[in-house]
């Protein structure tokens, strides 16, 4: 019984650690700002880099994590985006196709 309990605790702790690691680990298939698809969508990996003269529709508070096309959770540093065929975008990023998460 004790062993079972110990194992459960170890597994649970391990899951928490690996879950944290997954959330923090950057995806290997990240969209780069220089990708043709990124340029076409005006994507930047950090909202601080938005050219607001070119994209006046940007408003404070908009970022990939708050977009309906972002397939991650609030904890994810990056996650697949439906606008890029599933390639990952930065949660701190933005593009001209931004649509508020419903």
């Amino acid at each position, binding site marked *: 019984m004790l062993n079972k309990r110990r194992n459960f605790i170890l597994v649970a702790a391990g899951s928490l650690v690996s879950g944290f690691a997954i959330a923090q680990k950057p995806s*290997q*298939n990240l969209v780069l700002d220089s990708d*043709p*698809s990124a*340029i*076409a*969508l*005006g994507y930047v990996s950090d909202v601080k880099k938005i050219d607001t003269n*070119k994209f006046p*529709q940007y408003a404070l508070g908009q970022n990939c994590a708050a*977009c*309906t*096309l972002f397939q991650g959770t609030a904890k994810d540093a990056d996650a697949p985006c*439906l*606008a*890029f*065929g*599933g*390639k990952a975008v930065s949660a701190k990023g933005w*593009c*001209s*196709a*931004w*649509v508020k998460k*419903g």
Partner: protein
Amino acid sequence: MNIPLLSAITLIGTSFTVGAFAQSQIPVNPVSMVNQFEATNGKFEGYRRSGAKGICATGEFIGSPEGRALSVASVFSGKPIPVVVRFSVGGANPKAADNTKSQRNMSLQFTLPNGEQWLMGNISAPVFGSATPQQLMASLAARQPDPATKAPDPAKIKAFTDANPEVLLQGKYLASQPVPASFSSVNYWGVHAFSFTNPSGVKQFGKWVFEPVNGTQGLSDEEAKEKGGNFLFDDLRQRVKSGKVAFNFNLELAQPGDKLDDATVPLPEGRKKINLGVLKVTSVSDDDKGACLTVNFNPMVMPKGVEPSNDPMLSARAAPYAVALGRRLSEGAKQ
């Protein structure tokens, strides 16, 4: 009047000026583009704003030796590549009739090794309806129904097309062709130019076309009338079941001097054509679901070894597609 407001008014005014405006370099806001699509073509919640009546299928692609010699892209490896295929009837209406001389579409998602994808939106005409996003916006605006009559103003359309005759080329082509007998019996063109990089780093531009292995097949006007408005889905299911739906992925090779930045202009007749491989469709969704539902077929997503041309209409398709997908997700996405 402050400068930003003046600029905004100028921008709006420019957006709806017919003619010379087509050459404007002012970026088109993708949200405005989707709004204009809805204003002109109607809004059908959950459905794609273009190609709303569609069906999802799956298949596989096997690249050819010629494809491997042309490009290092993994899609041409010769190994089977899974493909999601969406066939659709042109337009925003999910109840569009199948027996008219309108556009058919074949959109593709190649799932490649190492997380790569290749997305395409191919159409049953060798040319796109507009050369630039600005021209597309103006074209849509010219065709927007008048609130009083609920119909487009013919004078506005004539003024626009007189000043932009190239926008008529696609419609003229479709009108010259018979109603397709099947989604599987019509050619689908990529319409934009792309470059392909070979193992030595040499780039070759070209425009592609997917051509049915068993040839094209059209209906006479009488046959089209008899078929009615809903035959394409069942026809596709039957043909796929019998193993007869396959397309040659062919590339017309551009030569120096060919126009590569305008999707209303095909490559000149007689350009050498090579076969990049064969796409076989192997199954069709039994219902209105399938793997296509949230794929936006952004034509700017492509594998290493394939690059876009500087055609402004090509890059301009990406953002409105994504905006429209976002709206569909909010509304409850439908096929």
